C-alpha cells in the first residue's frame, strides 16, 4: 500500500513501506550512493510524518524483502513472538516513539517486548528519535551475557583487546596483548583479526591466546576472528575455540556474499556449544555488523542501510551471542561520510541492537579517508558510555597496524571508566586487582606493581 503526507500545497507520496523508510532515514552517504535517499530536507520530514502514522502491524504483513526470496525475512516473520507483541499491537510507529521516551518504558518492560519487535519496526522508530533519545532509551536496557565472565551489567564497560599484527607474528601479537592486559583491557574477549586464513597459523594463534589466558588465569574468553567455515575446521582439528566469530548482514544475498547462510551459522553455533568451554554461561557467538555491508554486496533490495543493519540483528539474536558489535566507521566514507554520520549511525546501531535484546558493543572507529578524527571518536565514545554500551575495542594507541584504521585505545577505556564511574566485568575487575594492575576502586596502579611483568608469556621470553 502507498503512504502520503501533505505539507502546504505539496503532497508527498511514497509507493510502499520500503520507500517510506528509505526517505525517512537521516541523511548519509550510503543511501545517496544507493540512490534511495530523500531528495530534499522537506521530503525527509514528510516521510517521517507519514512513517509516524504507520501501524506497527503493517510491518508484519508488508515485508520489505520478499518472504519467498530471503531467509532473513523468513527468520524474522517465523520467529516473531505474537504474545510479546500483543501489548504494542495497537501502536503506530509514532505512538511507539512517544511511549519509548516516556517514563513507562522501563528496562524490564523493554526486555519483555524485545521478542515482539521486528528489526524493521525498531529501525522505523529510530528514524523518529534524536540522538539524545537513542541514548536515553538504550540506557534503560540491560543485556547480560556470560561465558567465563559476566558482561553487560549496568555500570560496567568491557573491552575487546585487539592485538593485531600485519603478519600475524606471535611475538608481536603477544607484546600488544601484554600491553593491553596491563592497561586493564580484554574482559569482553581477547580477539585477533588475523592477516591470513591459513588454518595452521590460526591454530597457533588460538593456542597462544589460550596459553596466556590459562597461565595468568584470566577470567575471559579468546577468539581468532576468521570465517565460520574456518572455525569449524579449527574445531575439527581440536584447536581451543571459545567463540565462533562471523561478520553478518541483513539480507540473504548479502550473507551469501560473506559465504554464509543461517544453516551454516546454526552448524557453527552447535559445534561451538558442544565444546562446553564456558564456565559461567553458554553464549558462544561473536558477530560483527556494519551499515553499508548489504549495499557493498549489491544486496540491499532498495532498502536504506540502517534498516538493512537492523535486520542483521535479527540474524544475530537467533544464536544468543556473547558479543555483537557494529564496526560503524570501518566501511568508509561512501557509506558514512563524516564524524556526524558515524556518530548518528553508531547510536542507531546501539539502540536498535539493545531494543532487540542484543549485547551491543561498538567499534568506535574511522578510516583515514573519512572526514573524522580523534575528537569525533571522543564524542562518540562518551555518548556510548552514557548510552550503556556493553563493550568497545582496545587497540594499542588506537592505531590498528594490521587493518589500517583507527579505533579506541586502552587509554580511551580508562578515560571512559573514570569519567562515568564504569567498571570492567566483575570477575575481570577482581583479577585486575589481584594482579596489581588496578586498585580496588578501579584505578590503574603504577605499572611496576603488576604480577604479570614478573613472568612474561613464553612467546616473549628471550
Amino acid at each position, binding site marked *: 500500500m502507498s503512504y502520503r503526507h501533505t505539507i502546504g500545497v505539496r503532497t508527498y507520496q511514497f509507493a510502499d513501506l520500503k520507500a517510506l523508510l528509505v526517505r525517512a532515514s537521516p541523511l548519509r*552517504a550510503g543511501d*545517496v*550512493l544507493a540512490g534511495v535517499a530523500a531528495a530534499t530536507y522537506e521530503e525527509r520530514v514528510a516521510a517521517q510524518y507519514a512513517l509516524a502514522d504507520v501501524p506497527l502491524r503493517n510491518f508484519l504483513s508488508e515485508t520489505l524483502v520478499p518472504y519467498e526470496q530471503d531467509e532473513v525475512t523468513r527468520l524474522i516473520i517465523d520467529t516473531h513472538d505474537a504474545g510479546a507483541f500483543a501489548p504494542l499491537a495497537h501502536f503506530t510507529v509514532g505512538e511507539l516513539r512517544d511511549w519509548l521516551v516516556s517514563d513507562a518504558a522501563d528496562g524490564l518492560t523493554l526486555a519483555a517486548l524485545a521478542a515482539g519487535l521486528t528489526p524493521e519496526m525498531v529501525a522505523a522508530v529510530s528514524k523518529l528519535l534524536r540522538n539524545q533519545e537513542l541514548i536515553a532509551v538504550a540506557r534503560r536496557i540491560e543485556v547480560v551475557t556470560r561465558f567465563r565472565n559476566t558482561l553487560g551489567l549496568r555500570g560496567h564497560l568491557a573491552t575487546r583487546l585487539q*592485538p*593485531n*599484527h*600485519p603478519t600475524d*607474528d606471535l*611475538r*608481536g*601479537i*603477544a*607484546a*600488544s596483548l*601484554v*600491553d593491553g592486559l*596491563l592497561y586493564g583491557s580484554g574482559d569482553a574477549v581477547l580477539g585477533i*583479526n588475523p592477516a591470513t586464513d591459513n588454518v595452521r597459523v590460526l591454530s597457533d594463534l588460538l593456542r597462544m591466546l589460550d596459553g596466556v589466558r590459562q597461565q595468568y588465569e584470566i577470567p575471559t574468553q579468546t577468539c581468532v*576472528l*576468521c*570465517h565460520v567455515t574456518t572455525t569449524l575446521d579449527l574445531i575439527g582439528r581440536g584447536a581451543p575455540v571459545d567463540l565462533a*566469530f*562471523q*561478520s553478518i548482514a541483513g539480507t540473504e544475498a548479502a550473507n551469501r556474499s560473506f559465504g554464509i547462510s543461517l544453516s551454516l551459522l546454526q552448524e557453527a553455533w552447535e559445534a561451538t556449544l558442544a565444546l562446553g568451554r564456558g564456565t559461567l554461561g553458554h553464549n558462544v557467538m561473536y558477530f*560483527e555488523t556494519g551499515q553499508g555491508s548489504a549495499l557493498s554486496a549489491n544486496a540491499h533490495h532498495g532498502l536504506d542501510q540502517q534498516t538493512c543493519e537492523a535486520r542483521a540483528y535479527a540474524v544475530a539474536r537467533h544464536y544468543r551471542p556473547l558479543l555483537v558489535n557494529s*564496526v560503524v566507521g*570501518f566501511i568508509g*566514507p*561512501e557509506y558514512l*561520510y563524516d564524524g556526524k554520520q558515524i556518530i548518528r549511525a553508531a547510536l542507531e546501531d546501539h539502540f536498535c541492537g539493545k531494543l532487540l535484546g542484543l549485547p551491543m558493543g561498538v567499534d568506535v572507529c574511522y*578510516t*583515514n*579517508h573519512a572526514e573524522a*578524527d*580523534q575528537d569525533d571518536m571522543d564524542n562518540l565514545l562518551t555518548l556510548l558510555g552514557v548510552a550503556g554500551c556493553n563493550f568497545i575495542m582496545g587497540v*594499542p*594507541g*588506537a*592505531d590498528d*597496524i594490521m*587493518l*589500517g*584504521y*583507527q579505533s579506541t*585505545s586502552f*587509554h580511551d577505556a*580508562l*578515560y571512559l571508566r*573514570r569519567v562515568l564511574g564504569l567498571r570492567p566485568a566483575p570477575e575481570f575487575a577482581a583479577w585486575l586487582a589481584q594482579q596489581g594492575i588496578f586498585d580496588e576502586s578501579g584505578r*590503574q596502579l603504577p*605499572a*611496576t606493581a603488576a604480577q604479570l*611483568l614478573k613472568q612474561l608469556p613464553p612467546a*616473549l621470553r628471550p
Partner: protein
Amino acid sequence: MPDLPELAAANSAPDPWASLNSFTAARIALGRSGTSVPLREALAFKLAHAHARDAVYSVLDNAQLMNELLELQLPLVQVHSRAATRQEYLQRPDLGRQLAEDSRAQLMGQAAGGRDLVVVLADGLSATAVNSHVLPLLRLLVPALRQASFQLGPLVLAEQARVALGDEVGHLLQARLVLVLIGERPGLSAPDSLGAYFTHGPQPGLTDEARNCVSNIRPEGLGYEAAAAKLFFLLAEARRRQLSGVRLKDDFGLLAEGSKS
C-alpha cells in the same frame, strides 16, 4: 586565595615493558598521565594522521610526471573520471570507476590492436604514492617487459580514479592486460603506499575476483626491485595463461581484497 606550592611535573615516562616495542610496530608501552596518552605520543599520532589526511587530498603532479616519464619513451595520455571533486570521489566510488565523456572520446580515438599491456597511473587515495614511486618502479618494469616482447600501449594518467577505471581504459585501448598503479588508502604508518592491480581481458563491470593485487609498494614496504620482479613474473604468467583473478590467485595467493574480517 591560598598560595599553591610549585607543582610537580606529571610523570609520563614510557612503561617499564617498553622493550617489547622491538616485537611490534604497534603503539605499545606509551605510558600515561592520568588516563591520557602522554603529549609526545599524542602529537606523534596526530602527525601521522595529518600525513594520511594530506595524502588523501594530494593531487597528481602532472607536469612533473609527464616530464619524468618521457624517458620511458611511451605516449602519455591524461584522463579524468566522472567524479568532479575529491568530496564527490570519496562519496561516489561508482563515479570514480567511470571515465568522463571527453576522456572516453579521447581514448576511443587511440584504439589500436596488438597491445599486450596498458599501464594506468591513478591517484586513488594517495596521489603522493604515485608522485613518489611510479617512476622508480616503471624504470625497472618497462625494460623487462620490452625484453619479453610485451607490446605496450600509452601510459595513462588518471585523476579521481578508482581501480576499476583501468578496466574501461584497457577495454577502449584494446589491451590484453591492464595494470593500474594506484595510491592505496593511507594508513597511519604509511601515507604513500602504492598498489598494483592487473586484469586480463579488461572490460567495464568486472569485480575484484577478476583481478590480482600486489600492494604496499614503497621503499619501506615492498621495495621497487622486488615489486617489479613480482609484477613482471605475474604479468608474464597472466599473458601466457590468458587469465587473471581467482584462478591466478590459487597459485600465487594474490587476489585483490580488503575487509575487516
